[in-house]
C-alpha cells in the first residue's frame, strides 16, 4: 500500500497523532503547499493529541469470562420474556423476505375478513327475506299503498271529525 500523501496526512493528523516519519512528510508537503495549511493548525494537532491521550476505559481482565457467564445465566433463565422458537426462526430470514411474508399475511387476513363480511351480509339478507315472507300475510294489499305519498303529506294536527263532516255534507 502506498504511503499516505499530503491531503491524506492532513486528514490523518486530525484522527490520530502522526508518527515522526508521517509528521516529517506532512511538514514537507505543507512547506510546498502553504495554502493548504489550516489557520489554527497547531491547535488542531494539539486537540488530536489530547483526544488520543484520553485514558482507555478500565475493563475487568475477566470481562470475556463474565460475559460468557452472563450468557449462560440468560440461557438458563426461564423462557418468560425470551423470544420463542418462531421468533428465532423468523430472525433467520432476510429482511426482504420478512417484509414479503408480512405483506402476504396481511393480504390473506384482509381477504378472509372481506369473505367473512360477504358471508355475513348474505346470511343477514336471507334472514330478512325469511322474516318478510313470514309477515307477508299481515301486510296490506299493494293497492292500499297506492295513495301512500298523499297520506304521508297530510298536514299534522288533529284529524277532522268525520261525523261532523258527513253531517255538513248532508
Amino acid at each position, binding site marked *: 500500500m502506498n504511503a499516505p500523501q499530503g491531503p491524506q496526512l492532513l486528514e490523518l493528523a*486530525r*484522527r*490520530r*497523532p502522526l508518527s515522526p516519519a508521517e509528521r516529517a512528510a506532512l511538514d514537507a508537503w505543507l512547506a510546498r503547499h502553504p495554502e493548504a495549511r489550516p489557520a*489554527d493548525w*497547531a*491547535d*488542531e494537532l*494539539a*486537540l488530536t*493529541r*489530547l*483526544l*488520543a*491521550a*484520553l*485514558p*482507555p*476505559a*478500565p*475493563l*475487568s481482565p475477566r*470481562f*470475556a469470562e*463474565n*460475559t*460468557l457467564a*452472563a*450468557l449462560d445465566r*440468560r440461557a438458563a433463565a426461564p423462557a418468560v420474556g425470551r423470544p420463542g422458537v418462531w421468533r*428465532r426462526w423468523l*430472525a*433467520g430470514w*432476510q429482511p426482504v423476505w420478512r417484509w414479503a411474508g408480512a405483506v402476504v399475511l396481511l393480504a390473506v387476513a384482509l381477504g378472509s375478513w372481506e369473505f367473512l363480511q360477504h358471508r355475513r351480509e348474505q346470511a343477514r339478507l336471507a334472514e330478512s327475506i325469511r322474516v318478510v315472507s313470514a309477515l307477508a300475510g299481515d301486510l296490506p294489499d299493494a293497492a292500499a299503498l297506492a295513495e301512500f305519498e298523499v297520506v304521508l303529506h297530510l298536514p299534522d294536527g288533529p284529524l277532522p271529525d268525520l261525523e261532523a263532516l258527513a253531517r255538513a255534507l248532508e
Partner: protein
Amino acid sequence: MAEPADPDAALMLRVQRGDRRAFEALMTRHAQAVANFLYHSLGDAAEAEDLTQNVFLQVYKSAARYRVTAKFTTWLFTIARNLCLNELRRRARHPAHSLDAPPPEQEEAPARAVPDTRPDGPVDTLLLNELEAKIQEALSDLPETQRTALLLYREQDLSYEDIATVLGCSLTAVKSLIHRGRETLKQRLKPYLRTGEWSPADPQL
C-alpha cells in the same frame, strides 16, 4: 460456503453456528474499543463496562440477523450507540446522584481517579487527571451526535462511511458533525491547547 475475507465476519459466521470460542475472540478483539466509546460517552467506567457486556450479549442474541455484507464493527457500534442512547434517555428521565459521587466540596476534583500507569511524578499525575476531567467534561457537553461522531472517528478502523451508517446520516453530515465537534472542543480546551499543560507527558506538544 467460502469463509469471508474479513476476520470479524468469519468469526460472526462461527458465532451464528453457536461457536462460543469465536464469540470470545470477537470480545477480545473489540471489547476495549466498545468500552472506550461508552466510557467517553457516559463518563462512568462501571456503567461503561456493564453496557459493554450488554452490547456483546446483544451481539450473541442477534447473531442470526448479522449479514456478511455488513461490516462487523459498524454493526457492533450501532448496537453500542443504541444502548448508549437508551442509557442517556434513562438518565434524562431519572436523574440521580451517584452514591459514589464526590461531596460538593470536592466537586472540582476529577469525577473519577483513573489508574495512571505512566511513570510521572504526583504533580504530573494531578495535572493529567485534571486535564482528562476537563476533556471528558467538554466531550460530555457536546451534542450526542457530535460526540459520537468524534469518538468513532478516533477508531482507526471506522471510515466516514461507517460512521455515517452508525449515525444513520449522510457522509457530509458526518464530516460536518466532526468539524463542529472539534471546533467546540478547541474553544473549550483552548487554555490547555495553548499553555501545553499536557507537555509533561507528551513532549510532542
